[in-house]
């Protein structure tokens, strides 16, 4: 069974946690997330121009690059994470240019060697992800890495099949039309859209963007297979530096409790 299948196969929703690689003590921060109950880890690859991200993750990208983080460093964090946590799914999330810089084959090979389970590339839509030398999806699938796609409130039913074709691992439903870390969507809209997407796919659906508190996460978890939290964790990395792991552990434990018990009443 794949790591995704076991993480999403439990009789409770999954908590997906995002931090940016190279922003603080990445290994210690990742361990804190896992120990406090994160079911899936998304590790952000820093980029100079994170166009889909709000101020919190933008700053994390710049802090990481300012500290000299390279692609080799990101892959090393992944390799070491896999050695410490053999069963926790690990996703690399980022933008096209750093991923395809040395060619999609190179990246897919390196990610596979590092034990990565899935890749979210924000700015390669399905329309560009086939029949070209820099299409990433085919290279990832060939090496057993799941290309994880995003669906959004603007992805209508006519377009959804195209987004789902070739998607693996889980589907990431971006609950707001906007950038990361901003306002939260109305729960009714999330419920409706997740139900709509689940009619078209067997993949688990995780919901993210704008989820900051255990209360919000718990509410969403009643309707989705997973909940993604990013900006709130990244802000802790930015604010607490070396003290971040303890603070991350605190928030993640509360999020995990809310998500894991959401459907028990």
């Amino acid at each position: 069974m794949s790591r995704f299948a076991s993480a999403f196969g439990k009789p409770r929703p999954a908590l997906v946690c995002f931090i940016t690689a190279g922003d603080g003590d990445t290994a210690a921060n990742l361990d804190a997330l896992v120990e406090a109950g994160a079911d899936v880890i998304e590790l952000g690859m820093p980029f100079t121009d994170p166009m889909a991200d709000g101020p919190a993750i933008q700053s994390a990208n710049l802090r990481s690059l300012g500290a000299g983080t390279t692609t080799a460093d990101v892959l090393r964090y992944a390799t070491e994470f896999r050695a410490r946590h053999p069963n926790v799914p690990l996703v690399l999330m980022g933008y096209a240019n750093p991923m395809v810089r040395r060619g999609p084959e190179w990246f897919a090979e390196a990610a596979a060697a590092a034990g990565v389970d899935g890749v979210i590339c924000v700015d390669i839509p399905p329309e560009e992800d086939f029949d070209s030398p820099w299409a990433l999806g085919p290279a990832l699938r060939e090496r057993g890495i799941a290309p994880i796609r995003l669906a959004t409130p603007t992805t209508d039913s006519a377009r959804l099949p195209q987004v789902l074709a070739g998607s693996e691992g889980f589907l990431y439903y971006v609950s707001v039309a906007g950038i990361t870390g901003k306002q939260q969507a109305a729960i009714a809209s999330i419920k409706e859209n997740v139900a709509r997407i689940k009619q078209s796919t067997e993949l688990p659906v995780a919901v993210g963007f704008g989820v900051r508190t255990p209360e919000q996460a718990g509410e969403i978890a009643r309707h989705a297979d997973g909940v993604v939290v990013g900006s709130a964790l990244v802000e802790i990395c930015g604010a607490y530096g070396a003290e971040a792991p303890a603070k991350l552990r605190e928030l993640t434990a509360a999020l995990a409790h809310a998500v894991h018990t959401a459907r028990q009443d």
Partner: protein
Amino acid sequence: MNTPLNSFRNLPDERGHFGQFGGRYVAETLMPLVLDLEREYRKAQQDPAFQAEFDDLLEHYVGRPSPLYFAPRLTEELGGAQVWFKRDELNHTGAHKINNCIGQILLAIRMGKTRIIAETGAGQHGVATATVCARFGLPCVIYMGAEDVKRQSPNVFRMKLLGAEVVPVTSGGATLKDAMNEGLRDWVANVHDTFYIIGTAAGPHPYPEMVRNFQSVIGKEARAQMLDRTGRLPDLLVAAIGGGSNALGLFHPFLDDPSVKMLGVEAAGRGLDGDEHAASLLGGSPGVLHGNRTYLLQDADGQITEGHSISAGLDYPGIGPEHAWLKESGRVDYTAVTDEEALDAFQLLCRTEGIIPALEPSHAIAAVKKVAPTMPKDSIILANLCGRGDKDIFTVADRLGVAL
């Protein structure tokens, strides 16, 4: 005009590709909008009323056609080819940018959008966007790198006078690329009512094609004017390139005229041998940024590096994807000139022709200065004078050590 089978004028393809360049590299939130924009643009292209309104505004509001001007004293000074200029600096708002803004705002209104956003570098596109928003009574937000806000304060004031909200962008290097990031973020968050007027022939399809088509009025006019005045086509076209819209506007209608050579001029800043330049084609490599695959200034990991040019309008680490394709196909030659050379050319045109050019076309003039003396006296160079230099006098004074 029918295009021949082996035309250079029939791209992009239906997916927005110019060979291996272009495309639609945007987040899923924007994808349905970009597809919708393309559908609406295709409908507008088929609508004679849309074209008629565009033409009418260009004539009566922008002041087109712009003159085609033979520069006698510059020609004499350089001692070679005849030098002619397409005078797009005489347009309303002082640059070619307004051509594209008229087209895009008509499309925005047609699509029922009620709010306009744009990015700007030197401020010319911001001023042009603010101008058309005032003309049509639409609210307007302009994203401008905080560094450029400092360098181009007269244009910031102009935009404000025209009713625009100018938002200084402090992320990254606080220049044009960061302003474009912020424009894309705004668009993602306000997809229901907002139209993003991109200022150059870059971004996700259909922007590169659409901006080129709106700017092609430059080359269409110039081609007819040159035939009318001289009975022949020019031997060489020269234009400066940041994102590349003025150059494509001039070049595109001539691409299938095999006798017409073309030269695009990038900003070499402090020299191509170092990192302080903005020459994506000559000093960069292919990658993905701002919605399209094109040549970029980037490091080995694909991180985007900061361009440098004395001209804020050329200070962009990418280039329109059609230029990337025209370079690889060999149809257009590309060169680069330094800040110093552009500054010399700026003064040369002031002195010989009584025209104060913007620093952007000063790069084209610097290239003309190099190439004209190597060409016979009966040959013709046509350069695009895409902006006037009023906005740049502070920068130039500073570089010449003059206190204003």
